[in-house]
């Protein structure tokens, strides 16, 4: 992985001042080729196959619905996956025989039929460690593995990151009604807020969006040392409290690796001066009716290996997470609260107040000055979930 031509980036830097967003007006044709993504998981865990269609530039994702997806062995075994919506087809725990070869067989709702080539089930070695280092820039997370049998050589990783975080502010007050208004533009009704702890602490999960591959083919031993997985920049919310990453590892065939490598180069590693032409992506899935039809994807079969680690904020000194949330002081005398609420703001802190009327049996306060912020700064469920994941300590 290190062998990629780093020097190509030097010119990129020379040009760094001169790289700018550019959206040419491209008249892309309607394509709608089938896209098949997923690895037949021969080990623990489920097999997830995603079906979608290629789309025009700037149009929205089009899932392939209503298809029948089957895993077939060359021993004539057949396993049918269940459609889970959004183009996801799933089956739990396939117990595949490593001596056999398997393929994917897809019947789409428009009566087309696609089959992949038969592939071996690669026996993935376990992940030795998911390591991390913290330097001045942030936390670098890497994977290490080895195969004592020297059989794996090509590896693919993806990951799920999960982090716990707090909403930055615990508000003291809440608008209950704006109908009662003694003096339009000057006062409004709030009640003291009994801070709701359920919207203060949340978790968020994010999946990898880069193609992570590595190879030991040029080494005398099948060892992968510090393959980059992801990077958490210093000050990121992800490590403001506690962070966890689940790395999944699959061994690939040389062809599957080559496919992902081309896709990575075409879509992630382009843009330098010594720029290779985008290459044609040739997968191993074919239309039965028309073999020349383009189908994007390469079906592999491998046993999945996973490893999860946790990193807490206390392990990274001077992390310096700074919330982007701000409190702005407002004076009802100048702008009525109604206007702020209408523009999506919520009140946070009272700076000065006096008692108001009893409203619905509650003593209200009349706020003279107070602070406002955006709702996601007081309610973390707007950006994540407040249901603690089962694996969280």
């Amino acid at each position, binding site marked *: 992985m290190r062998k990629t031509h780093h020097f190509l980036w030097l010119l990129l*830097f020379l040009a760094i001042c001169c790289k700018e967003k550019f959206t040419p007006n491209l008249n892309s044709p309607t394509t709608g080729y089938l896209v098949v993504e997923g690895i037949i998981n021969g080990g623990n865990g489920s097999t997830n196959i995603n079906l979608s269609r290629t789309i025009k530039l700037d149009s929205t994702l089009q899932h392939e619905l209503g298809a029948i997806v089957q895993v077939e062995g060359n021993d004539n075994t057949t396993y049918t996956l269940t459609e889970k919506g959004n183009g996801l087809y799933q089956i739990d725990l396939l117990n595949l025989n490593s001596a056999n070869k398997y393929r994917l067989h897809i019947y789409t709702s428009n009566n087309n039929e696609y089959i992949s080539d038969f592939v071996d089930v690669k026996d993935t070695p376990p992940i030795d460690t998911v390591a991390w280092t913290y330097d001045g820039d942030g936390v670098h997370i890497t994977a290490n593995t080895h195969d004592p049998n020297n059989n794996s050589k090509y590896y693919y990783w993806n990951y799920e990151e999960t982090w716990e975080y707090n909403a930055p502010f615990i508000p003291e007050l809440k608008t209950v009604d704006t109908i009662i208004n003694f003096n339009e533009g000057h006062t409004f009704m709030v009640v003291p807020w009994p801070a709701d702890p359920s919207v203060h602490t949340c978790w968020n999960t994010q999946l990898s969006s*880069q193609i992570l591959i590595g190879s030991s083919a040029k080494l005398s031993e099948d060892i992968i040392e510090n393959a980059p997985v992801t990077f958490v920049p210093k000050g990121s919310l992800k490590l403001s409290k506690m962070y966890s990453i689940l790395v999944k590892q699959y061994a690939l065939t040389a062809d599957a690796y080559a496919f992902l490598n*081309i896709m990575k180069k075409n*879509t992630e590693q382009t843009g330098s001066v010594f*720029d290779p032409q985008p290459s044609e992506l040739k997968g191993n899935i074919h239309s039965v009716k028309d073999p020349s039809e383009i189908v994007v994807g390469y079906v592999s079969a491998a046993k999945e290996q996973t490893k999860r680690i946790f990193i807490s904020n206390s392990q990274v000194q001077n992390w310096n997470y700074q919330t982007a949330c701000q409190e702005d002081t407002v004076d009802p005398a100048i702008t009525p609260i109604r206007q702020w609420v209408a523009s999506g703001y919520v009140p946070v802190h009272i700076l000065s107040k006096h008692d108001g009327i009893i409203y619905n049996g509650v003593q209200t306060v009349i706020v003279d000055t107070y602070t406002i912020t955006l709702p996601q700064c007081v309610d973390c469920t707007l950006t994540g979930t407040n249901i603690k994941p089962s694996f969280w300590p």
Partner: protein
Amino acid sequence: MRKMYSICLCFVLPLFYSVAWAQKNAKDTVTLDLHGATVDQFVQELQNQTGFRFYYDVSQFDSLRVTITVTDQPLAKVLEQAFTGTDFLYSIDDQHRVFFSKGQAVKTLLPAGLLGTTTVTPKKQTDSLFVPEVEKKRKPNERAILENKIYEIGDKSVDIGQARVNIAGYVLDAKTGEPVVGASVYIEKPRIGISTDQYGYYSISIPKGRYVMNVQSIGMRDTRRQIVVYGEGKMNIELQGQVITLKNVIVSAQKLSNVRSVQMGVQRLDIKTIKQVPVVFGEADLLRVLLTLPGVKSVGEASTGLNVRGGSVDQNLILFNDATVYNPSHFFGLFSAFNPEVVKDVELYKSSIPARYGGRLSSVIDINGREGNKKNFAGSAGIGLLTSRLNIEGPLIKDKSSFIVGGRTTYANWLLNILPDQYKNSRASFYDVNFNISHEINKKNNIYLTGYMSKDRFNLNSDTVYDYGNQNISLKWKHVFSNKLSGIFTTGYDRYRYNIQSDHDSLTSYKLNFDVNQGYFKAHFNYYLSSSHTLEFGVNSIYYKLHPGSYQPGGGKSLVVPDEVNAEQGLESAAYISDRYTITPNFSVEAGIRYSMFNYLGPQTINTYAPGLPKETDNITGTVNYGKGDFIKTYSGPEYRISARYSFSDSFSIKAGYNTQRQYIHVLSNTTAQAPTDIWKLSDPNIKPQYGDQFSLGLYKNFKSNTIEASVEVYYKRIQDYLDYKSGAVLVLNHHIETDVINTKGKAYGVEVLIKKNTGKLNGWISYTYSRTLLKQDDPTAGEVINNGKYYPANYDKPHDLTVISNYRVNHRFSVSLNATYSTGRPITVPIGTFYYAGSLRTLYADRNSYRIPDYFRMDLAMNILGNHKVDQKTHNSWTIGIYNLTGRKNPYSVYFISENGIVNGYKLSIFGSAIPYINFNISF
């Protein structure tokens, strides 16, 4: 007002007689400081100082403007200086009378043979009082110094019995003794002419008799020699550089080389022109100046790789003093590898490639280094923002041998330091060194030893260090067998290598080495058979040894398995002959044939593939091992080089040409720009040689007394078996590289228009090219079919290209250059759609090169400020101040799409996004 001289004399003489004769104390030295003086002012001054009398036709001399600064110089020398480069002549008689004339000198003595036959002239004619003094300083090989002196060639008492005789010699720079290349030497009536070769040597066959021999060369003053030819002989001619100019005298004479030569598609640029053109960072760069010529393009600013008439970068033969330079760029292509201080000129052949060159399809770029000053020690130094350079030259034995050594180095790290933090640990540096020793053993033998070395090294804030360099050495012996036959024998060794290594020790640290080596021998002969036939013939042979990749562990911890691709050996040989046949003065033909042969040599292991199936690893039927020295595969074939010229008039001609080329060594690259780490590969049983042919036709017309040259050339070119790579090709350390490349066909055609003004206060050129370069891969058995087997534009296909190079000399110390260039954006492959895969939207590609990036436009400005012009001072200095990309336009180098954080973003990348000012200080001593 074309009155006869003698008549004018009658009018003028009495006028002066009365004025001038009064001064008795005639002295023969003068001190002058004139700037743009008219002839009257000039003569008045001379007359006052010398007391000589002057006679001239006012109407003939009214265009003369004299700028001259001399102290206590003899009158003859002053006049010579004032008139050099013009067709004005003078004579001085023993009566202290000076006669100015145009075209022909006034005879002050009656020739002894005047009463006899008209062609006989006295053996030692003295034209003036002062000539004997000049002649005392004559060198043994009799350099002709004066234009109005009559030279006798051959012994008039011996009748050799031939109608035509041969005259040969060298044309030299009078100041430095360096040869003048490409000077045209000709007589009129009958019109017979020849150009000097790269050693300044000429050989011309003319009938016996009396002639005016004209000598012209760009950058030098035209001169002429009165000769009387009795038999074979030698005559060396010295030309004066145009250092001191006669303002407003348009020394046009006949700058007709573009109209007259048989060859077409040839451009010569001398270093003076190259230095005038503004370039980024102010470092004169001959490859970038070549890019301003019609038919020469590149993919973008970060590449010095040239695409000549639709050829790829590896189809150019780049020769630097006969040595092949495999990588002509430094610093990612921002600088060319040639130090401007040691370069004399560059010739680009893009159509009629002479038969003596071969081995590349598109062009020959022949760069001639300077020879050292044979008379005095001299040197120069320059300081720029990124580079500094120094060169020293001088005689080893005065007038016999000289040396020149030049070096350049860079200090670009400051540039890297001001870049964003992520590059703060990057380093980049380069240097290059040239030397050239030339020695004249005797009149018939010259030897030349030249060497070149360059090295680049950089790392990019990563653990990987890149290092590449050229090394070349050559030894050349020029031998004159006779006036008619001369030979050049050259041997040398060229090497290009790179390596990539990690500079820290880890499990994956490695060292990758690659090199190309070639040893060569060339024997080239010129035979001046007669005035209508000039033959060139010779043989050459190149032995190649390539190490296409060695991959080794980079440290003690490293687990890298050593891997080495077998070394490749090959022998490329060729024999050629060509004849320049002047059928009539208006019609001449140059026809040549070159037979080239390539042997792929053992030891090697060759894969065999099932016939009719794509070359893929699945189709390998076996391997064959060959031993050392085995001839594994031989390719051979003839290459034709034909061109013809017909002149309708002195200033208008039409030319046509056809030539074919074969190429046995290829670059394998999947990058758009030429990268230093590209792989070179020899043809082998599985990789065929490339073959190309080209038809071209051109019209050449000179205007305004030949000061403006105009030409229009059209061409059509076909390329076969050009190597392209397959999708996902692995080019590094591939033991069966034939499985990752495909043969493609190409065609290129275009029109090139060039208008050039070489002289005058305002000079420069305008070039416009319309051209297309299209490639095709439609053979399904060869692997993948690109764009459904249709023609698609090559990466460097830029149909419209307009360049204006202009230089305005405000005065002798200050000149301004302004360039503008426009071209169509280059084609790129853009996505036709997107899809979602591995957590992100990603781009879907098809239709190679179907879109074009926005058009390119750039304007550059440079000012050259010279220090004072006194010829005698110890050092001369100059400043170059300029702005590259004056308008600050962000010219896109590429447009690309990248998946970031799950979505696809489009970007436009520009190499230079703003105006870049630069300053350079040069000093010569």
